[in-house]
């Protein structure tokens, strides 16, 4: 009989409690909504990527190289094409300046051979132009028209030739790359690109071959057969499945991170529930005592209220699931520039079920602690009101103390997808909670110690409320401080990332235009051109491409294939290097071992090189080791005589390997120049450079920065959007925590009014208390968040740290204001009605 009675009691009780509790269940709803939305969206993403794997790559296999495909590879591709005509396509990419009649700017050129893309299609405006490209007709990305102030039908000058803009490509190939920031894409026939003469030695180019091979087993065999040839020829290869998986991994990681931010909202919701249930149980003590008197067992009473918590959890989480689905439908718009393809909406039932379970679970676990109080309520209380709940040590209490962190850790691990990350997250939360608790406890002690005895009555009473019994200091500081902590940490990291990206070319006096691919015979004339648009003399840095042949006599192949001690990273051996040579180190590099050379190489001596510290380690080499290079077909022996630490964050021409002068001067080389020009001079400079030498690229760094900032801004916005859930949940916790004390404050205020307190005094008292609570929570949260931000910026991103003082101060001030408003609201309650109601409350 016990269970049905508990159930019917729970049902009857909940009729009156549900409205009161609903406000706090919204905190759970918000948390579950955040989780369901982001996890559903993540599942949608992965589904879409799987469905569009081939369309994303445009083929089943892509081969890519920085140089033209060697004949061996060419022959394989040709045989595939001969076997199945139309099964291969090619894209050759490079950069150049494009000149319109009124504008100029960097563009990325794409020379197309064959039916690219092999899967999916390219929409154009006017329609059906794709596949008809030939001669001087080009298709462009829509943004080019606005950048170069051009319209369809205009002529563009690229690499000394004239091209006609035949139309725009409205659905662009799925390139997931920051390269797109370098300039809009221009598509032309491969032969037309060749005729521009832009594909010279040393040019930054990319050669891609796309292959259609529908049978997965055939594809696998093909890759296995040619694996070694591709490696030897420095050719990268990606299958559609691999590419989809990589993309899915990146987006999944972002999604999981956003999910963790959302999880914080749910846990805050748990705190709100705990506060609300606590208040509720306190108001039900007499009822419970009476129930005990007339025969209800401790267990029945406990079960009845536990069932109510379960019911509330299901309602709250269920609402969250519905809200989450609505939100999920809106997320694609929010993440438009972050996710490189359309995400189709579908209901993810497992995610919804998980949201319901997690939401209900969090509600129950957080409700357990206040619910345990029921077990301490004796029937005697019904007879004598003054009987306090027995403070016996309930063994179940310890069980719950262990259960709460265990459940939080389990949910964190589930959401993070990786045990280490989930645990780290849970520990970080616990640590933040501990610090907040310590601060709150310290403040209660300190206010008691340094109590403002001479202050006016309302101030004294308000401040004293911070440390008196049943104070709200710890609860409010933890709840609100936590929300503030999350928001300020995210804000600090975002600000610093954006600061880092905006090197601020104009005010910082730093270079803002980069000229690349300057040929040796163009150095002098380019120097003259630069001088016309920049006040600073141009420094041209030579660049000589090269590859590693051997280290200490061990061939590159052996270095990679055979086990070496110390360990050698294959990428460091295989990569194509761009070297320079110079007499002195630059300001952005520091010699940390060995010494810089004095003068050029002596005849007959081995050439000295200086190597960047991390690269040296990746090569498994040390000071004094010999490295043999292949410089454009010539083998050159060098010795490592110094090791450098390079500040890559500085916008300078930095290199992994710097040669002693006197070796590379006669090798084929190109030059790069960093130019500082007024923003108004950038386009004229680009026009002048392109007019003189069409092969030279002039990249407007400011424009690139703006694009990157937009992308980072989008991601940051998505993160802050999720953090906003925490903030709203935090605000609800604040309400719940304050509501716990409000009943008492209202009663006290009424009593004080009977005893002669004026309204202003009551108002001042409450305002002082709440504003002080807000100040404490806001300051602690901001300081904690700032510190966490500093740790992340300094040690995860390894960047210089700037504290965004004003915005953090604004956040703290906002919290104080919110708390103060809460105080005003409470005082309105306290001052409504006549003091006589106090008598009515208790008299028969």
């Amino acid at each position, binding site marked *: 009989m016990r269970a049905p009675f508990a159930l019917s009691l729970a049902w009857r009780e909940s009729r009156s409690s549900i409205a009161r509790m609903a406000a706090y269940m919204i905190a759970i709803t918000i948390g579950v909504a955040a989780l369901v939305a982001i996890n559903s969206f993540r599942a949608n993403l992965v589904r879409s990527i799987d469905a569009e794997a081939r369309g994303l790559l445009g083929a089943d296999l892509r081969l890519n190289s920085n140089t033209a495909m060697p004949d061996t590879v060419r022959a394989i591709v040709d045989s595939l094409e001969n076997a199945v005509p139309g099964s291969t396509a090619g894209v050759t990419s490079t950069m150049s300046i494009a000149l319109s009649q009124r504008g100029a700017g960097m563009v990325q050129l794409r020379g197309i051979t064959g039916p690219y893309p092999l899967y999916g299609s390219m929409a154009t405006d006017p329609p059906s132009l794709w596949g008809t490209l030939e001669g001087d007709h080009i298709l462009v990305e829509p943004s080019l028209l606005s950048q170069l102030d051009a319209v369809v039908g205009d002529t563009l000058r690229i690499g000394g030739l004239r091209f006609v803009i035949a139309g725009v490509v409205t659905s662009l190939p799925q390139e997931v790359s920051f390269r797109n920031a370098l300039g809009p894409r221009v598509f032309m026939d491969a032969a037309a690109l060749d005729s521009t003469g832009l594909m010279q030695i040393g040019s930054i180019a990319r050669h891609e071959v796309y292959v259609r091979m529908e049978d997965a087993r055939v594809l696998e065999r093909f890759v296995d057969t040619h694996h070694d040839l591709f490696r030897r020829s420095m050719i990268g290869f990606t299958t559609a499945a691999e590419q989809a998986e990589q993309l899915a991994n990146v987006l999944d990681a972002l999604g999981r991170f956003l999910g963790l931010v959302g999880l914080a909202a749910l846990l805050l919701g748990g705190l709100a529930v705990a506060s609300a249930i606590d208040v509720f149980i306190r108001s039900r003590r007499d009822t419970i005592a009476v129930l005990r008197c007339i025969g209800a067992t401790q267990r029945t009473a406990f079960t009845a209220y536990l069932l109510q918590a379960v019911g509330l959890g299901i309602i709250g989480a269920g609402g969250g699931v519905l809200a989450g689905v609505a939100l999920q439908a809106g997320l694609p718009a929010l993440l438009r520039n972050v996710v490189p393809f359309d995400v189709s909406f579908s209901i993810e039932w497992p995610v919804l079920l998980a949201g319901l379970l997690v939401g209900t679970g969090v509600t129950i676990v957080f409700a357990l602690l206040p619910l345990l109080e029921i077990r301490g309520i004796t029937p005697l209380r019904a007879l004598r009101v003054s009987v306090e709940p027995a403070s016996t040590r309930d063994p179940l209490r310890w069980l719950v103390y262990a259960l709460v962190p265990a459940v939080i850790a389990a949910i964190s691990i589930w959401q993070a997808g990786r045990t280490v990350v989930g645990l780290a997250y849970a520990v970080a939360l616990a640590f933040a909670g501990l610090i907040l608790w310590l601060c709150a406890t310290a403040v209660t002690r300190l206010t008691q110690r340094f109590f403002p005895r001479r202050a006016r009555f309302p101030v004294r009473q308000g401040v004293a409320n911070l440390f008196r019994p049943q104070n709200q200091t710890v609860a409010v500081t933890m709840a609100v401080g936590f929300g503030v902590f999350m928001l300020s940490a995210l804000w600090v990291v975002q600000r610093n990332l954006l600061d880092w990206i905006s090197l601020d070319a104009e005010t910082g006096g730093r270079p803002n235009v980069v000229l690349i691919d300057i040929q040796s015979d163009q150095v002098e004339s380019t120097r003259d051109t630069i001088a016309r648009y920049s006040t600073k003399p141009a420094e041209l840095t030579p660049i000589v491409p090269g590859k590693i042949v051997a280290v200490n006599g061990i061939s590159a192949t052996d270095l990679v294939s055979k086990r070496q001690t110390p360990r050698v990273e294959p990428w460091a051996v295989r990569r194509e290097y761009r070297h320079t040579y110079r007499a002195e180190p630059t300001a952005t590099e520091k010699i940390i071992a060995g010494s810089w050379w004095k003068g050029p190489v002596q005849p007959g001596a081995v050439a000295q090189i200086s190597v960047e510290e991390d690269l040296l380690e990746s090569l498994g080499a040390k000071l004094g080791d010999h490295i043999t290079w292949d410089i454009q077909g010539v083998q050159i022996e060098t010795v490592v005589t110094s090791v450098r630490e390079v500040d890559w964050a500085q916008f300078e021409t930095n290199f992994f390997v710097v040669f002693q002068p006197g070796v590379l001067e006669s090798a084929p080389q190109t030059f790069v120049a960093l130019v500082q020009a007024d923003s108004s001079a950038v386009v004229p400079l680009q026009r002048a450079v392109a007019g003189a030498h069409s092969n030279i690229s002039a990249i407007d760094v400011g424009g690139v920065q703006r694009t990157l900032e937009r992308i980072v801004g989008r991601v940051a916005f998505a993160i802050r959007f999720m953090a906003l859930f925490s903030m709203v949940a935090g605000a609800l916790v604040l309400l719940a925590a304050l509501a716990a004390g409000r009943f008492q404050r209202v009663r006290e205020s009424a009593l*004080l009014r009977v005893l002669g307190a004026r309204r202003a005094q009551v108002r001042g008292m409450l305002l002082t208390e709440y504003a002080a609570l807000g100040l404490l929570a806001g300051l602690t949260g901001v300081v904690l968040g700032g510190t966490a931000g500093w740790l992340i910026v300094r040690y995860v991103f390894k960047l210089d740290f700037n504290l965004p003082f004003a915005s953090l101060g604004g956040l703290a001030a906002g919290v104080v204001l919110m708390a103060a408003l809460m105080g005003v609201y409470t005082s309105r309650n306290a001052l409504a009605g006549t003091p006589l109601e*106090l008598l009515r409350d208790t008299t028969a």
Partner: protein
Amino acid sequence: MVISARNLGQTYRSGGRTLTVLHDISLDVGAGEMMAIVGPSGSGKTTLLGLLAGLDRPATGSVHLLGQDLAALDEDGRAAFRAANVGFVFQAFQLIPTLTAVENVLVPLELAGALRSTSAADLRARASDLLGRVGLGDRIHHYPSQLSGGEQQRVALARAFAGRPKLLFADEPTGNLDAETGAVIIDLMMELNADAGTTLVLVTHDPGLAGRTNRILRLARGTIADGQG
């Protein structure tokens, strides 16, 4: 007259109907007088006490305390008047649970602005003295939850007399206490009242307590059934 009420009436709205809880009550109470208001539950005792103390505004009629027309004062004005002239004792003690015994006694003193003329230490000494007089000299730093019902009511008595009020209102002061403890509280209240010469108005169901006053006002259905108005 310390208290002078004329044609007092009070109505409340309940369930869409207007309930008349007090009707046409006039009475005078002289200085140092002790008056008990008695009557069955729902007869309007507490309502009358609230109106006499200025805790609520009457629907009709007027109340003068110490010559001051309460209707002429706004809410804050009445609060200031109470702080200066009126003490209270409640059935449910109504101590502020977050303040210690001595802090509870200090509240009316602080509200009356006593700190402007007296040092904090002196005020505290006075509050401690009062607690000593009600037999709680050794429990001044205890919180209400650490005191028994009888002890809490003693603190409430000390608080009521702390501001040396000219008027004391008591609402069922022994209602929540056993007979023995109640008797002690009454003795204490009478003693403090006699010492201070305070005018006392109390609501009670206890004939013993009512019998110890100079005058009994009997209410029935919102009007005076017996006793001089």
